[in-house]
């Protein structure tokens, strides 16, 4: 206890020292004393701002998670729509903030609407994907039980799946706490009157580094609190011990390659039609002005049929390659970071306690605050941005994998105990396979997240790639270009997602066949 306190005191002291010497006058890092002074001086303003943003985040969190649960229920009850729902959800999740923000402000006008919506958008997908994994994480024998009494999907859902999915739902609920906060915060960039986002724009633009750091610390504290609250609830709800999920490998494997191709094409067609219909429909219903709310045919024209489309495509391709150069390494780095941290945490509870706040902080601190620091430390090149992407990507992976690692069935743990297997080997031979469904859920989420994170980093910090292109397009009213870029970003994200999904299927067919069907 004393050592922990002493450690913290030392760390803060060192921070102060470095801030006052090495980094003095550079306005990259706030000093503890400066931050405290800001917190004291502006207690009231910061307090109110925090309250507003927290409220927005909480509402968005609630709505987003409710939407995720509702969509998951829909999928369980109508498994046929699963792919469509997931793809559609992915498209919504992929809509870049740069494009979505101003649009939401137009739709909502004044008030909290855009902030809450962006928070909800940042949340719902992160919960939906693991929740679906959890709803499937049941052994055949439990399903046989409801089948014995001729009960259908609804009863199975209520009696079995709902409870079995709890760990995965909790993982989602935990990972989305900082996501909601960050969503609300970025939502405040769309012309909000108040909140931490508004305060941090000002602090940032006026070189008020201590103030910015104070605001980020407050945001982190709130997110951490929420995170710990959900973690506490999760522990209380935990099912005794995970059970062995015996289920036989898929039945419907007899499909030929051409049949699979046809089905895939059909799925793409249906998804595309639904997305296009929703696009045109939403714009028609909200009566958005076609000046900025471009329709599919405008994009088609810009990308394909107009005489300049060739140049447009070249421009997009160049930017896309720039973004890919950042997003792809960032994706893998984030995934790796998440898995490695999760495994380290599962091996050492002390490390877990010490680093959890840091991990939450990294995820909560808006990229606008962290990017300059990283870029200063790591250089302006792709490396620095990739690190930013990794930081924004790793957190859901960490949380999901932490829950996944805990899914080692008790009976299997006993087998390892028989040979007093060291925990590192249990990890390798038991926990990692048991984690596979959770890991792949987060790997699927991370694909679009990495792309989005890259564009956000480009927008807010580096001024390159698709993110910058969208920012410039928005600032120079090139709305057709903006929408075309949005479409391309979405398509790339979908493709990345599909790629991860293909790998996932191969692995889970062996490791967790129950995941491949309802």
């Amino acid at each position, binding site marked *: 206890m004393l050592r922990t306190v002493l450690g913290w005191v030392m760390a803060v002291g060192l921070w102060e020292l470095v801030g006052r010497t090495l980094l003095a006058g550079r306005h990259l890092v706030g000093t503890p004393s400066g931050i405290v002074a800001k917190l004291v001086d502006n207690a009231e303003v910061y307090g109110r701002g925090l309250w507003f943003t927290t409220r927005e985040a909480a509402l968005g969190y609630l709505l987003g998670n409710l939407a995720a649960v509702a969509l998951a229920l829909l999928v369980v009850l109508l498994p046929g729509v699963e792919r469509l729902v997931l793809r559609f959800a992915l498209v919504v999740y992929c809509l870049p903030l740069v494009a979505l923000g101003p649009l939401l402000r137009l739709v909502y006008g004044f008030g909290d609407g855009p902030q809450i919506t962006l928070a909800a958008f940042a949340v719902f997908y992160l919960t939906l994907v693991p929740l679906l994994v959890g709803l499937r994480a049941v052994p055949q024998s439990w399903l046989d039980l409801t089948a014995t*009494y001729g009960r259908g999907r609804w009863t199975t859902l209520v009696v079995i799946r709902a409870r079995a999915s709890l760990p995965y739902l909790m993982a989602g609920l935990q990972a989305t706490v900082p996501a909601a906060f960050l969503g609300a915060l970025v939502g405040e960039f769309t012309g909000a009157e108040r909140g931490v986002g508004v305060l941090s724009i000002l602090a940032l633009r006026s070189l008020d580094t201590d103030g910015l750091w104070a605001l980020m610390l407050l945001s982190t504290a709130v997110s951490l609190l929420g995170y710990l609250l959900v973690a506490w609830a999760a522990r209380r709800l935990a099912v*005794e011990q995970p059970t062995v999920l015996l289920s036989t490998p898929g039945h419907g494997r007899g499909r030929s390659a051409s049949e699979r191709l046809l089905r895939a094409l059909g799925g793409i067609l249906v998804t595309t039609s639904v997305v296009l219909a929703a696009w045109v429909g939403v714009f028609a219903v909200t009566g958005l002005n076609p000046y900025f709310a471009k329709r599919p045919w405008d994009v088609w024209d810009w990308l394909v049929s107009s005489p300049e489309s060739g140049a447009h495509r070249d421009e997009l391709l160049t930017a896309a390659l720039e973004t890919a150069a950042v997003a792809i390494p960032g994706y893998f780095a984030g995934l790796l970071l998440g898995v490695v941290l999760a495994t380290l945490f599962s091996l050492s509870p002390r490390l877990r306690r010490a680093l959890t706040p840091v991990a939450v902080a990294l995820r909560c601190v808006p990229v606008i605050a962290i990017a300059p620091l990283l870029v200063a430390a790591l250089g302006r090149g792709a490396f620095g941005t990739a690190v930013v992407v990794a930081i924004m990507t790793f957190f859901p992976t960490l949380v999901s994998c932490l829950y996944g690692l805990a899914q080692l069935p008790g009976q299997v743990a006993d087998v390892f105990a028989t040979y007093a297997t060291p925990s590192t080997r249990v990890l390798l031979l038991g926990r990692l396979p048991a984690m596979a469904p959770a890991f792949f859920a987060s790997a699927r989420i991370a694909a679009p997240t990495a792309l989005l994170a890259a564009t956000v980093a480009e927008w807010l910090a580096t001024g390159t790639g698709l993110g910058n292109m969208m920012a410039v397009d928005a600032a120079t009213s090139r709305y057709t270009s903006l929408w075309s870029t949005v479409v391309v970003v979405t398509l790339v994200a979908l493709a990345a997602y599909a790629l991860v999904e293909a790998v996932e299927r191969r692995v889970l067919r062996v490791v967790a066949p129950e995941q491949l069907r309802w």
Partner: protein
Amino acid sequence: MTAAGVRGAPEVVCAAVGKTFATGAGPLAVLEPRDLTLAPGSVTALVGPSGCGKSTLLRIIAGLERPDPGGSVLIDGDEPLAVRRRGEMAIAFQDASLLPWRTAAGNVALAQRLAGRPADPARVSALLRKVGLAGFERARPAQLSGGMRQRAAIARCLVTEPRLLLLDEPFGAVDELTRRRLNIELPPLWSGTSTTTLLVTHSIPEAVLLADRVLVMSPRPGTILADLPVALDRPRRMQHLHSEEFTRLVERVGALLGVDQYAADEG
């Protein structure tokens, strides 16, 4: 149709029921196509070597597994699914498969609920007492011994008064004394005019003691080697164990399964 309670036991008619599993190493023939009829109200025991397809046959009769094309199962002319829907079937699976988050009583009560029966806590407790779980109503499966879990699963089966009862090795995890006790005490709960029972068991004496008819299966791919009627009067009691008919049948079945032959070979 009349209410479930009033109707008599159903007849189960399997026609050309066979099963081949697709495995990574190619198709695995598990059951040879075969007709089989379970008479209304009868108790049929199914014995056979491990892996011969007993559980598979039981699952096919329940409609949880599809027979190979051409095969069909009809229960009083209905699809198995229809019977399940009416809550008239119950299965004791080979592994107890209790829901870990429910108490013993909760698991039993769940079956009542799933079968659309009114909640009846008194009946739940009574059944748990009958299977020797008095005092453990509120224990979760993880707090029960292997045999206790299996007994809770049996109670779950019986609580709905099913018309078709499928028991897959229901006493495999309990000791000999408890097994005998249950062998004597439970059948009155189900054998009678209203329930048709299929019992998979590894215990030849148990098969003979409980059944009206013993089906002996061959090793995989399973075929029915013998179909032996059991001419013992009901209700069955421990005395029957010492009857001539009993001993004869046990030996007969043992011989069919090669149990005795193995003893001879080995000598």
